[in-house]
């Protein structure tokens, strides 16, 4: 297992160098992604196109810096590439671009589409008699997109079981808190009513995360991970202001000091 501090340092440095990006919703994802890539998923970084690998679709594509750091630290590509985030000619676009970067299973960025793609991919894997699973990470603000609920309806109705959705419930979106913009709660009740098994966890506690993923179920599983937007950097935490803003040099210095 890698330390979450390394991933958070990567995220902050990358976004600082790029001069733009989304630190808040990247920092909230760290522990869930570490669990997935170091414990949960069946993957082989030396064979990123392995047919029977588990897949991950980051539907909230603006969390790309977290995923890039994870993929690099897991060995899909050299960590030195992280310096090129959002730069011209880089394989690390502002939002995940599958065609250019090994380890990415899907390009994402327009919110609301990842769950349906994950569902199609999971359906395809079942038709091929593969036992691979598909994981999809959603933001809680993203659940305001109607297309999410189309997929939330079809996945249990098609009895798809090789799919796990994770909601990164950091409760903050670009403009303000989710509660103030357009509340999406009560989430557990909604997903249960659509036919999902719902598990909850503290999205920054690796043991709780592991337990949530191990929830026994014969239905599709959605994990509501309670997280903190900007987790680990006190002046970013819970603030919509840090949804899409790069730290300047002093702020980066301050943040890195805090992480130590």
């Amino acid at each position, binding site marked *: 297992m890698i330390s979450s501090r390394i991933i958070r340092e990567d995220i902050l440095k990358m976004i600082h160098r790029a001069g733009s990006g989304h630190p808040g919703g990247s920092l909230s994802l760290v522990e869930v992604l570490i669990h997935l890539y170091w414990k949960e998923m069946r993957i082989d970084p030396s064979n990123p196109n392995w047919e029977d690998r588990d897949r991950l679709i980051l539907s909230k594509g603006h969390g790309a810096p977290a995923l890039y750091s994870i993929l690099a630290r897991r060995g899909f590509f050299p960590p030195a590439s992280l310096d090129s985030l959002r730069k011209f000619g880089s394989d690390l676009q502002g939002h995940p671009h599958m065609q250019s970067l090994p380890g990415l299973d899907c390009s994402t960025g327009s919110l609301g589409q990842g769950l349906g793609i994950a569902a*199609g*991919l999971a*359906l395809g894997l079942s038709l091929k008699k593969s036992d691979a699973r598909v994981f999809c990470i959603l933001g809680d603000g993203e659940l305001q997109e109607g297309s999410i609920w189309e997929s939330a309806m*079809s996945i249990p109705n098609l009895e798809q079981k090789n799919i796990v959705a994770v909601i990164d419930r950091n409760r903050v979106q670009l403009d303000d808190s989710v509660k103030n913009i357009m509340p999406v709660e009560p989430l557990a009740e909604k997903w249960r009513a659509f036919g999902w098994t719902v598990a909850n966890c503290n999205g920054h506690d690796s043991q709780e995360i592991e337990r949530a993923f191990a929830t026994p179920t014969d239905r599709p599983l959605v994990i509501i991970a309670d997280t903190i937007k900007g987790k680990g950097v006190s002046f970013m935490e819970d603030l919509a202001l840090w949804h899409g803003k790069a730290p300047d040099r002093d702020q980066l210095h301050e943040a890195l000091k805090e992480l130590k």
Partner: protein
Amino acid sequence: MKATRVGYVEGLLDAGERDSRVIVIDGDVSRSTGTVAFQDRFPGRFFNLGIAEQNMAEYSAGLALAGFIPFYSTYAVFATGRAWDQIRTSICNMNLNVRIGGAHSGTSVGPDGATHQALEDIAVTRVLPNMTVLVPADSNQTRQAVLSSLEIDGPVYIRYGRNPVPQIYERNTPVVPGRGRLLREGKHASIIAAGAMVSIALQAAEMLKKQGISVSVADMISIKPLDTELILHMAKTSEVIVTAEDHQVTGGLYGAVVEFLAEHSPHRVIPVGVNNRFGCSGTPEEVLKHCGLTAEIISGCVEKALKKW
């Protein structure tokens, strides 16, 4: 006379037989589009996802990521318009092998009225990188368009219609992306048509012949990639070019032809198509007439242009 939607389903059945990667997805219109026949033949490879076009496009993207060739179809207006961002970002951006069937396109869905008449679908698909756009003119050609799409690397939009149109092609006349067909060669003027307007353009050519005017007629089934060689040939051999389409003239066939000619062989081109308006209820013939999409209008455009020049 046979509807192009029949050819689409015949193509799906043959494609399904030939290639086990073919999956068909419908959005609660399978009895109207006819894809229910695919469900009967290949029940394990058919999915009806209900009235949820965005989800259909997303499932198709995912199935293509898993190595399948999904064909999703519903009324053209919803297939392309309701799911456009999915088509753009999740299908074209990843250059996935998704085929989109735009059923009941243009004015062919007459009585249903303006809401159901897709008159903008060519424009919104043609603009997307990686997309191939095929607009077949009869049922045989539609079947062949479906089969030819199996060989295309990347997304394909196939536009077809609801009501019967005259048969122009033999069953086995192949469709080649990037290639149109010169159906008739004349020396005074050229008509470039697509879809349901091809047979109407041929009628116009007959009417003009009676007046001693000989016109070429080309079927531009492949709107993207465009058959630029054929267009150049027509520009070189005739002073008057008329386009004919069951679609808005902006962004459709007319748009494609003039964009190309403006750069490579400046030429005056006269559009016959829907001009910045919505359709209305009526029989397909009545709506075609209302929108100015008749053989008389096409022949009139040719005559007028020849007189003026």
